[in-house]
């Protein structure tokens, strides 16, 4: 009997060793080695230890200014996004505000127009050749056409684009507050604002803190927005990394800067993690009561909050509406700042559909996003299963490695990949990856690892262990148990993660701009090209069509994912 059991264990162990070897290879090759390689290129440029390039770059005024700008942007953005995000979630779920349905849709807009789409929209509305600027110039001929440029413009755009963490995570924490705790406070004579500050906000503190960290990282590693809206007077680190990486002679400067950015991000995470550990709140409620909305008693305050809520909703949605309208306009009307419905045309759409060059970016992004979403979800289904099933030091380390893309700037990851795999490498079986169609796919997979792992791990954690035991007790093998019992339970969550990964990558720019194959430019890169001074009218008009495609796909997917989630919630209630 013991022998039979040993054979069974041996077979399982062989399978485990094969998976472990593949995992160790993949993690080392694509997550660890490129960053170590970047470190080597930076500190050992000619094979010997040399800090000269580091000192040289740190003594550059341009670099120091960019560093300062990145830091100022990150701090300012953390403050503004928190103010806006917290206001939005309170308007949606805590206070009774008229027009809640419309506000709910409007406040979800950062989810459907992430990255390049909103930057493009702002550029073509407020930029020097923008629609609004053209109209303002008619009224005020002496005004500066570059009025919407620099720190202010970057901060505004990134603030309105940056509330997605609040809408997704902080809002969940607010909704999960046990209403009985508020009733208990009321019962003890506490009222209105005191309940908010003493009962509600302290519970939200951990999620606000987490959202703040993410916002800070987004700010410090901002790329597309400062590149398009920052102008010469507001240069940040990542655009500088990009411009240094373009030529071979300055590539190691780019590496130094990217590493510096990485160090700053890690430092912030270490400090915040330390602070975060001091206070965390877990609901101890046995029977939770759903949150009920509160009416703002002061009529003047209520009116001010309502008006502010709707103005914010308009600010978040009007640029998207403009992009939609621009996609039907002619280039002439756009530059002249004229919106003539009679001239509306489908030519821009036909230009995209009927030409190979027009359609290729759409197909490229669809294929890369789809493939990377499938692969990353597939890998994480296996890895998250191992991590949740075997909770030990080894799986803890594995999880830590998979979090690397979360605490390293994407530019650093991208730069690490192109500078490491630009020659045949033993780890890639003698293949050169830089310049091939594969490297962007690898980059896309890497940057979605932490999110996917977190979500799928949570899905596995939600499964009652006894289900698996019951299946085994009834004679099902481990594989059958997984296919017939475990996977059908987590399937809805897996599908959601796949779809959300897909739309996140659809307009991806930060990694794409370093790794794309010249024959297959993705949508994010095409949108950025359209914002350049040397872009053609055709590419600009097509960029609106691309934006509309991205928005439509995102709206459909988000409605599907969140619509289903809220339907499930209602069903449970």
């Amino acid at each position: 009997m013991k022998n039979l059991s040993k054979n069974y264990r041996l077979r399982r162990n062989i399978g485990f060793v094969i998976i472990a070897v593949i995992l160790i290879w993949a993690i080392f090759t694509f997550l660890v080695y490129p960053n170590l390689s970047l470190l080597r290129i930076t500190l050992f440029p000619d094979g010997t230890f040399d800090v000269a390039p580091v000192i040289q770059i740190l003594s550059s005024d341009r670099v120091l200014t960019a560093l300062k700008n990145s830091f100022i942007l990150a701090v300012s953005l953390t403050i503004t996004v928190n103010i806006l995000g917290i206001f939005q979630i309170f308007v949606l779920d805590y206070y009774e505000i008229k027009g809640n349905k419309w506000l709910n849709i409007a406040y979800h807009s950062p989810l459907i127009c992430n990255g390049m789409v909103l930057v493009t929209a702002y550029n073509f509305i407020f930029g020097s050749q923008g629609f609004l600027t053209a109209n303002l110039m008619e009224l005020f001929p002496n005004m500066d056409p570059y009025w919407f440029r620099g720190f202010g413009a970057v901060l505004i755009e990134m603030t309105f684009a940056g509330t997605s963490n609040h809408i997704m995570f902080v809002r969940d924490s607010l909704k999960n507050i046990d209403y009985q705790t508020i009733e208990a406070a009321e019962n003890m004579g506490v009222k209105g604002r005191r309940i908010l500050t003493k009962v509600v906000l302290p519970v939200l503190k951990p999620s606000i803190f987490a959202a703040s960290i993410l916002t800070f990282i987004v700010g410090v590693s901002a790329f597309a927005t400062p590149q398009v809206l920052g102008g010469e007077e507001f240069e940040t680190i990542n655009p500088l990394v990009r411009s240094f990486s373009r030529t071979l002679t300055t590539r190691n400067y780019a590496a130094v800067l990217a590493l510096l950015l990485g160090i700053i991000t890690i430092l912030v995470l270490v400090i915040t993690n330390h602070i975060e550990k001091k206070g965390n709140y877990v609901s101890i409620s046995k029977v939770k009561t759903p949150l009920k909305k509160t009416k703002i008693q002061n009529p003047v305050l209520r009116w001010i909050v309502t008006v502010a809520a709707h103005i914010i909703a308009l600010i978040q949605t009007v640029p998207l509406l403009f992009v939609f309208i621009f996609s039907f306009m002619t280039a002439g009307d756009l530059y002249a700042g004229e919106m003539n419905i009679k001239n509306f045309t489908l030519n821009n759409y036909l230009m995209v559909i009927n030409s190979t060059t027009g359609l290729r970016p759409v197909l490229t992004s669809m294929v890369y996003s789809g493939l990377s979403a499938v692969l990353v979800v597939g890998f994480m289904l296996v890895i998250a299963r191992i991590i949740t099933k075997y909770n030990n030091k080894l799986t803890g380390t594995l999880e830590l490695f998979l979090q690397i893309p979360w605490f390293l700037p994407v530019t650093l990851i991208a730069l690490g990949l192109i500078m490491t795999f630009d020659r045949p490498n033993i780890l890639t079986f003698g293949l050169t990856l830089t310049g091939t169609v594969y490297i962007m796919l690898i980059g896309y997979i890497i940057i979605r690892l932490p999110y996917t792992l977190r979500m799928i791990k949570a899905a596995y954690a939600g499964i009652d262990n006894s289900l698996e035991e019951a299946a085994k007790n009834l004679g099902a093998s481990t594989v059958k148990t997984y296919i017939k019992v475990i996977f059908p339970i987590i399937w809805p969550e897996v599908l959601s993660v796949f779809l959300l990964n897909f739309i996140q990558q659809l307009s991806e720019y930060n990694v794409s701009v370093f790794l794309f194959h010249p024959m297959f430019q993705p949508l994010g890169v095409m949108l950025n090209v359209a914002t350049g001074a040397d872009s053609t009218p055709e590419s600009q008009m097509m960029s609106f069509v691309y934006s509309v495609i991205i928005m439509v796909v995102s709206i459909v997917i988000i409605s599907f994912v969140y619509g289903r989630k809220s339907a499930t919630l209602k069903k449970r209630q």
Partner: protein
Amino acid sequence: MIKFNNIEIRFGDFAAIRDLSLEVEEGEFFTFLGPSGCGKTTTLRALVGFITPARGTIEVNGEDITYKPIEKRGIGMVFQSYALFPTMTVEENITFGLKENKWEKRAIAEQLKKVTNMVNLTEEQLKKNVSALSGGQQQRVAIARALALNPKIIVLDEPLSNLDAKLRKSLRVELKKIQKSSNTTMIYVTHDQEEALTLSDRIAVFNNGCIEQVGTPREVYYSPQSEFVTNFIGDTNRLSEEIIQEINRQNPGADLNPKDHIYVRVENVKEASERTPGEKYYRIPAVFDMEEFYGITTRKTFLSGRSEIKSMSLKNDEKLERGVQMDLFVNPSDFIIFKER
């Protein structure tokens, strides 16, 4: 017959089960009873195969199954959370094991009919998703699923703990009937002494990773072999030194050692009118403190000096005033005595 031979189960440095030996007869309804964390579920899981003992062996009908894979042990299990597969219908849940064990379609249909009849599930319910059923119905599905593979042994891990009191009682009766009609050996884990006493042929009382006593419900109730069993099963008073000295003072021949641990069950503490004629009783002067009214019975708390003593009686028509003087009577033959160590 199931035999646990000197089982030891460890979780790291912690020994959850220490040198446990036990025999369960074929066709018995056997209960593992004990407080939370005493090791009853751990022992059950070792029998099913979810845990491998660090030492000792487990035998079923003479075969050593200690290292046998779970699916080959032929032991059905009903889980505390029911563990019904939420993505499947009632029918799919019940037939899951049959399909996995490659039963023929006709045999599956016949078995499905048989077990659903046993647990009183309707045809209509079979087509429903398990999440659409009530707690009691879900429990029936869990039992049917465990019965489907015709196991010789079925283990049940606190299967009624998530149900309301009334449903628990009615399912308890059904469970006993199912066990008898299916002629299976059932091992039932519970911390509820009432469940254990009403259902079981025999009970093993667990405490701190060991078995304190194995016996029929009457044996463990009337002849507890340890103070733990005395306290855990039934409702008991431990007579204080003060009360024992008072008994000795009033009855010079009693000769009770005040240092001994002397217990008397609450139902054996009588008021004057409840005494059996001809029996010898010791009188305990007391003052009425409070009562708990249960409908059929009333549990009263008295104070004798500074010591508390409780009684339980069917007599519940008169409401006593707090502070009323009253004499209580205890029969020395009802004493459960543990000598001073």
